[in-house]
């Protein structure tokens, strides 16, 4: 049985939560995620 493994990064945007899935071993650009999260916080109330 094959299983896929992801790591999950969770951020809070207002009353919502944003979960981002990444593949192990792959670094996520933190600045890009932070920018989108900030935008999400502004747009999602």
């Amino acid at each position, binding site marked *: 049985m094959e299983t*896929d493994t992801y790591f999950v990064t*969770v951020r809070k945007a207002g009353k919502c939560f*944003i979960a981002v899935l990444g*593949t192990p071993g792959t670094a996520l*650009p933190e600045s890009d*995620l932070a920018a989108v999260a900030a*935008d999400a916080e502004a747009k999602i109330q």
Partner: protein
Amino acid sequence: MAVIEPMMKRGKATFTWKDLRSTAQPSIADAVGASQDATELEIPLKFIIPHFMAASKPASEQKQVDVDTSIPDVFSKEDIEAKTQAAAPAPPKEEASPAPTAPEPAPSPSAAPSATAPNEIVERLSQIPGVTGALITMGDGLSMAKKLPAGVDSDALAGFVPGLYNRTAQ
């Protein structure tokens, strides 16, 4: 009154001669018909009723209530027409001044993104290098938008995310 009321309910008014003699005006001497004191005499109701009704008038007049004149009469057609005509000129004034309404378009775009914003954000996140999927959930674990790889149970993940954040954010 206390004596007559039961008689009115009964529909028959009877008095003894003694009672009539003692209450009659002008007064009648006690000797007159003394032998018939116990005799009952029926008085026709048509003589008693007018006096009874006059004596049993309600003690207090009906209360008068002051009604605010600014309250419209909802049952009066004329009143409603007058109000609608008075209200009608107001909207054209607002339409006549387009300059102040220029900022108005701002709310409508902000309302539209509220429906599309989560999807847009999920789309943007999924374009970031290294990101394989993204999900936005409410605090109660209901998903708002998602773009996940095949095989990932979005409902399970959505329910898991708020708790995960609350535990790791401490």
